[in-house]
């Protein structure tokens, strides 16, 4: 028994994706955002994408490139306050934005990754975020039904990967990455380093390889990965 080698190129990993795809993108602000995979997705030129990401990055960075090129129809997110373009496109109707409470977005993605239909929560019960969502009464308590989210493809940034797709993240670059890495039909991880099988100890793996379809090695990191605007 040996484990499969899933390392490939960006081009191969993304090939066959079509217009209208739903794309999950890891990252919270700069840390953990797969800037290189996003650049390749922009080059692919797909239209009508639904993007699921915690935030909209900042102008000129990350998924802002996808917004600028008009490839996004719908954004499922928690906060876009640092990207004026995203706010403007939302206000003008150029994109549809669905806001979620941050931890509920995390749980909806996790539910998708865990093969569940959804979760029950009282979060946002009295806010407009949950308007129109179904309710169910459990033990006398009214709970909101939050449905699971899955995507056609998830773009993941890892600090380290082995060829089987075992992933490890660093510091606050973990954020949504391990959740999204379970919740898509095709999971593509860009990794700062690909280490030989066995170098990542079993107890040190953050995302187990069976969830990951493709591993792509990054070259020297572009400037975006270290940008601070504040």
């Amino acid at each position, binding site marked *: *028994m040996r484990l499969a080698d899933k390392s490939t190129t960006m081009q191969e990993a993304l090939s066959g994706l079509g217009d209208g795809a739903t794309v999950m993108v890891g990252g919270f602000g700069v840390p953990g955002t797969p800037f290189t995979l996003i650049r390749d997705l922009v080059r692919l030129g797909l239209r009508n994408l639904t993007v699921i990401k915690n935030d909209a990055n900042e102008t000129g960075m990350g998924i802002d490139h996808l917004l600028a090129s008009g490839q996004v129809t719908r954004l499922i997110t928690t906060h876009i306050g640092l990207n004026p373009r995203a706010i403007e496109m939302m206000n003008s109707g150029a994109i549809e934005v669905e806001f979620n409470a941050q931890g509920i977005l995390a749980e909806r993605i996790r539910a998708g990754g865990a093969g569940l239909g959804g979760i029950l929560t009282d979060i946002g019960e009295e806010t407009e975020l949950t308007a129109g969502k179904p309710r169910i009464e459990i033990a006398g308590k009214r709970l909101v039904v939050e449905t699971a989210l899955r995507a056609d493809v998830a773009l993941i940034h890892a600090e380290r990967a082995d060829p089987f797709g*075992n992933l490890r993240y660093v510091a606050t670059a973990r954020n949504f990455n391990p959740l999204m890495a379970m919740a898509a039909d095709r999971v593509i991880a860009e990794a700062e380093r690909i280490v030989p099988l066995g170098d990542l100890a079993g107890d040190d793996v953050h995302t187990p390889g069976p969830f990951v379809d493709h591993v792509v090695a990054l070259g020297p990191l572009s400037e975006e990965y270290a940008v601070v605007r504040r």
Partner: protein
Amino acid sequence: MVARAAREIAPGMVVNLGIGLPTKVVDHLDPDLSVCLHTENGLSGIGPTLPPECANSNLIDAGGAYVSTVPGSAFFDSAVSFALVRSGRLDLTMLGAFEVSQSGDLANWKIPGRFSPGAGGGIELAQKARRVVVLTTHTDRAGNPKLKDTCTLPITARGCVARIFTDMAVIDVTPAGFALIELAHGVSAAEVCAATGAALALPRGDIPTF
């Protein structure tokens, strides 16, 4: 039959081998085969079976047997382990059975009044693995067929079983019911039919043996 079942595993698959007969499949795998064996108590990448003196007491499979790892093994908690199963990342599971119906229903967790220790992870494996095959003796200890028109025992999951490996034959579950695929060496199609509790479609021409 265990060796025959082992050939069901294709390169690149993620596979869960259920408690009992299926666990023995691991000893029939080509050491060079690219396969990831999963166990629901939290390990991807089971390695070859170890002699007891090499065992690590923190390293068991879901059946409680000591296992080894391979380069690239990963450990995870029980929620992640079943997330993998339910979200479609398990290509194949091999399970034991009390009964299989001709529509692929599986009963393998409870015999009312006699055996009811709980289903463990069996329901999720049966319901969510991309392909479910069963390894079982063709009949029970009393000689009664385990392959039947309908299950009489409480079911584990409906319509889940694709293929059955027994000591007598390899049988597929098709939309039209059971179909004989292969015979065990020295067993006749007539004997298999007689030991099967439902109609069994025979292939045209020679029937391969294993």
